[in-house]
């Protein structure tokens, strides 16, 4: 009897984990949704147009790391892109 209960408990816990993993959005999905919600929550005003919510690659990358250290290769790439942008 005890073995059967334990067995069912394991099945239940496994199912819960599988469902949880299947339904939790990935970080990329959350980022995409946040951008979409942001764009739907603002309106252009004067010279502050909606294009100000369009991120370039640097902004996208820096937002993604959210204050955490950026890996060296990524940092170098950002630096390179931005050095080229200096006229």
């Amino acid at each position, binding site marked *: 009897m005890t073995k059967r209960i334990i067995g069912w408990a394991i099945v239940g816990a496994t199912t819960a984990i599988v469902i949880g993993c299947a339904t939790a959005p990935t970080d990329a999905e959350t980022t995409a949704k946040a951008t979409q919600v942001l764009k739907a*929550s*603002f309106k*252009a005003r004067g010279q502050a*147009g909606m294009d100000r919510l369009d*991120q370039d690659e640097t902004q996208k990358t820096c937002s993604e790391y959210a204050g955490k250290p950026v890996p060296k290769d990524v940092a170098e790439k950002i630096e390179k892109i931005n050095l080229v942008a200096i006229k």
Partner: protein
Amino acid sequence: MSKLPRPAVIRLGAVASALALVVGVALAQTSAIDEIAKYRAALQDGNPAELWEARGELLWKEPRGPNKVSFQKCDLGLGPGVVKGAYAQLPRYFADADRVMDLETRIVWCMVKLQGFTEADAKKNPFGAGERKADMEALAAYVTSESRGVKMNVAGTHPKEREAYRLGEKMFWFRGGSHDFACATCHSADSQRIRLQDLPNLTKKEGAQKGYTTWPAYRVSQGELRTFQWRLYDCFRQQRFPELEFASDASIALTMFLAQNANGAAFDAPAIKR
């Protein structure tokens, strides 16, 4: 001293001067922060926010709108008409609307569903200016005052509440605009300030609690009581973003992120700020 070679004396002098300068600046900064704290404490006596709270209470109890009913059947999450402690648990998921709402969004909901206003009318004029006072700010002042001293307890257990939190966190770090700003630019480091205003580090528990629990606030410089929706609206304006729509999904998600991070702290508003 006379035994030291001349260049060494000069170097020592330069180091000492630099040290004195750094210490002097640090002391001046501390002293300025202390003086600002004293100024704020002095202002606490007789906070004009009380006028907004009193007007808000009248508006809450008065039959209004096409249906001529009061807010006393408005459910802020603790049951119809229950105001005491309600703000300390907002934003939250409301089954009747099937969405997460902050205080202002819920007030709009009640104005539409109970009082019969159109949504456009309910959302009109959310922020007062001069003689044009905003009912929304008064209502928010009253409701929030009924949570003064109550510990923040935003649940975040419903899937939609969890989603709002995750989206709000992403938005906090979202860099954009003509000046490449994010909320985090000003609010993810210690001891930042814009002019005389301290900027709490919202990535730390203490900063998040201090930052969130002191809004709404009467702004001395504006002669108005400002809500948390206004705080977000004006932060984005200063970031040179387009205009944040009142009671928008982004404003609710950001509020959820910040409010939940303030959990455990006693709510202490309407406050008074410079």
